[in-house]
C-alpha cells in the first residue's frame, strides 16, 4: 500500500463523515437540554434543498448557507413551539417534522433535480466541524453557562427552582440542533454531492441520532463514532473495488447494519445508558402557570 492511497482514503473518509458530525453534534446539544428531536432527517433535507435552490437562483454560496441555516432555524422553531409551548409528545412531533421535511424538500426541489452546480471545496467545513465539536465540549464542561444548560437537561424542576428559564434554554438547544442539521444538509447538496436529489440524505439523519447514543452524550466521542462509522462505510466501498463478487445492495446495507451493531454494543450496558443519558430527556416541562 503506498502513501498516496492512504492519503486518498483519509481524504474520502473526512469528506464523507463531516455531515454526520454536524448533524450529530447538533442533536447532542438538543438532547443535552432534555429534548429529543427525531426530525434530524427532515431538517437535513430541507437544509439541503434550500441551500441548493438558493445557490442555483442567486449564485451566491454565502447566501445559500445563510438561507439554509435560516430554514433549519424555522423548522426547529416550529418543533420548539409544539414541544415547549404546546407540550406535545416529542417523539411524535419529531416524526412529524421528518415527514413534513421529506415532503417539503421534494416539493421545493422538484424542478431542480439534475441542475448542475459548481461544488464547493469541503475542507473549510471539515475544519469547522472539528471546531464546533471542541467548542461544544468546552462550553459544556468548562463554562458556567454550560453547566446550567446541562442542569436543565438533567432536572428541569431543579433548574427552574434555581431561577433558570427552562423554556428559553431548551429553545436555544433546539435551534442550535436545527441550524447544525441544516448545515449538514447544505454541505451534502453543495460540497459532498454536489447536486439535489429527493431523499438524498438516505438515512444519515437517523444514523446521526444513533451516533448520539454511541457517544453516550459526550461531545468529543461524536467524532470517534462518526469517523469509525465513516471509515467502515468507505472500507466497504474499497472492498467492492477489490472485486469481491457480492451484489452492490449488500454493500449498501453496511451503514445500516453497522448502526444496529453499534447500538447493540453500546446499549447492552443498561447502567451506562441510564447514567449518561440526560435524565429529563423527552419529559415535557410544565411550570404550572
Amino acid at each position: 500500500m503506498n502513501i498516496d492511497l492512504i492519503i486518498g482514503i483519509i481524504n474520502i473518509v473526512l469528506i464523507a463523515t463531516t455531515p454526520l458530525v454536524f448533524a450529530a453534534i447538533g442533536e447532542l446539544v438538543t438532547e443535552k437540554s432534555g429534548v429529543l428531536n427525531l426530525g434530524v432527517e427532515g431538517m437535513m433535507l430541507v437544509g439541503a434543498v434550500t441551500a441548493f435552490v438558493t445557490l442555483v437562483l442567486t449564485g451566491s454560496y454565502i447566501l445559500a448557507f445563510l438561507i439554509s441555516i435560516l430554514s433549519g432555524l424555522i423548522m426547529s422553531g416550529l418543533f420548539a413551539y409544539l414541544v415547549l409551548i404546546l407540550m406535545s409528545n416529542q417523539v411524535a412531533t419529531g416524526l412529524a417534522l421528518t415527514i413534513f421535511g421529506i415532503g417539503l424538500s421534494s416539493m421545493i426541489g422538484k424542478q431542480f433535480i439534475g441542475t448542475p452546480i459548481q461544488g464547493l471545496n469541503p475542507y473549510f467545513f471539515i475544519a469547522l466541524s472539528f471546531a464546533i465539536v471542541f467548542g461544544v465540549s468546552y462550553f459544556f464542561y468548562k463554562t458556567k453557562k454550560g453547566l446550567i444548560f446541562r442542569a436543565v437537561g438533567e432536572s428541569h424542576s431543579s433548574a427552574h427552582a434555581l431561577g433558570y428559564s427552562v423554556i428559553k434554554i431548551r429553545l436555544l438547544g433546539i435551534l442550535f440542533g436545527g441550524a447544525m442539521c441544516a448545515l449538514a444538509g447544505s454541505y451534502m447538496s453543495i460540497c459532498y454531492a454536489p447536486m439535489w436529489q429527493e431523499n438524498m440524505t438516505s438515512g444519515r439523519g437517523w444514523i446521526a441520532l444513533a451516533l448520539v447514543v454511541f457517544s453516550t452524550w459526550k461531545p468529543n466521542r461524536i467524532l470517534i463514532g462518526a469517523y469509525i462509522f465513516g471509515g467502515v462505510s468507505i472500507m466497504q466501498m474499497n472492498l467492492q473495488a477489490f472485486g469481491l463478487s457480492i451484489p452492490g445492495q449488500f454493500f449498501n446495507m453496511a451503514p445500516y447494519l453497522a448502526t444496529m451493531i453499534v447500538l447493540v454494543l453500546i446499549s447492552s450496558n443498561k447502567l451506562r445508558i441510564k447514567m449518561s443519558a440526560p435524565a429529563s430527556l423527552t419529559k415535557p416541562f410544565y411550570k404550572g402557570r
Partner: protein
Amino acid sequence: MFSYYPSIIVRGQPSVLMNIFVPVIAVLLTLFTGSIIFSLMGYNPIFALYTFFISPISNAYGVSELFVKATPLALIAIGLAYCFKNNIYNIGAEGQLTMGAIFGGGIGIYFYDVNSFWLLPLMIIVGAIGGAIWGMIPAFLKIKFNTNEILTSLMLVYIAILILDYLVVGPWKDPDGYSFPKTRAFSESARMPLLFQGLRVHFGLIITLILIFISWFVFSKTMFGFQLKVSGYSPIAARYAGFNQNTLIYLAFAICGACAGIAGLSEVSGPIGLLYRDISPNYGFTAIIVTFLGRLHPLGIILASLVIALTYLGAEDAQLFMQIPQAVGFVFQGLVLFYLLGADLLVNYKIVFKKNI
C-alpha cells in the same frame, strides 16, 4: 384598564369531547393552511382544494381508488396501535410491509404457473409471517440488548428495501422481462379477488375490516388489550400487577409486523400483481399519522385512513391537472400531524382567560 390574557390550566381528567374534536380541528386547520399554501404558489385556492379533495372522489372509480389507498394504511395503522398503546415506537412498518411482500410474493413467484385455491391464503399467511419476523427483530434487540426500537426498526426499513432491490434485479428477475427490474407476474389465483367488476378495490379491504374488528374486540374486551393499555400508561403499575412486559413487547411488534406484512402482500397481489422496486409510496410511514389521527381507536383509524388516502389521490390529481408537485401530499400529511399534536394540548389542559389588573 382591565385586559384579559390566556392561561393554560391542567384538567383533572382528560377531556373526552376534545379527544374526538381535536382530529377534526386538525384536519380543518390543514385545509385552511393548504389554501394559503396554494394561493402563495399562485393557484386559485378554491379550485386547488376542489381538485385536491373533492374531484378525486366524485365518481365510482375515484371512490374505489380511495379504498384501494386506505386499505394498506388502515391495516398498518391498526397494527401500529398495538405498539403505540404500549408506548413502543415502532416506526419501521415500511420495512415490515416490504418483508411481507417479499415473503408472500416469493410464494407467488415460485408457483407462478400454479392456479389453485390454496395459493392466495398461503401467500397471505407467509406474508404475515415475514412481516412478523422483521418486526420481532427490534423487539428482540430491545429486550435482549436494551437498544432503542425507534432507530433499529428504522434501520431495518433501509435493509428490507435493499433486499427487495437485490431480489428484483438479481435472482427473482423476470427471465422474459427485457432486464427490467421486476419479477414474473403472479398467476391469476395468486391475485386478490376484485370486489366489483371494473374497479380496483379488492379483497384486501375485507381482510382489513375483519382485522380491525378483531382488534376492536382485543382492545376493549380482552385481558391482553387491558395489559397493553396499562403498561402504556404506567409501566410501574403494570410491573406491580405482574404483567410480563417482554411478552407484551414481543406480541405488539409481532402483531404490528404481521399486519404490515399482510398490507404489503395485499398490495403486490392486489393492484400490482408482481414484485418490483417501488411497491409502496411510504404507506408504512404515513400509517403512523393515520394511527395518531385515529386516536389509536379502530373506528377512528378507519376514518383517518380515508382522510389520509384522500391526500394521496388529491396529490396525484393536483400533479396531473395543475402541475403541482405530488410531494405536496406529504406536506399535508405532516401538517395534519403537527396540528393534531399541537391541538392535543386541549385534551389535557384548558385555556382560561384571566383578568389582568
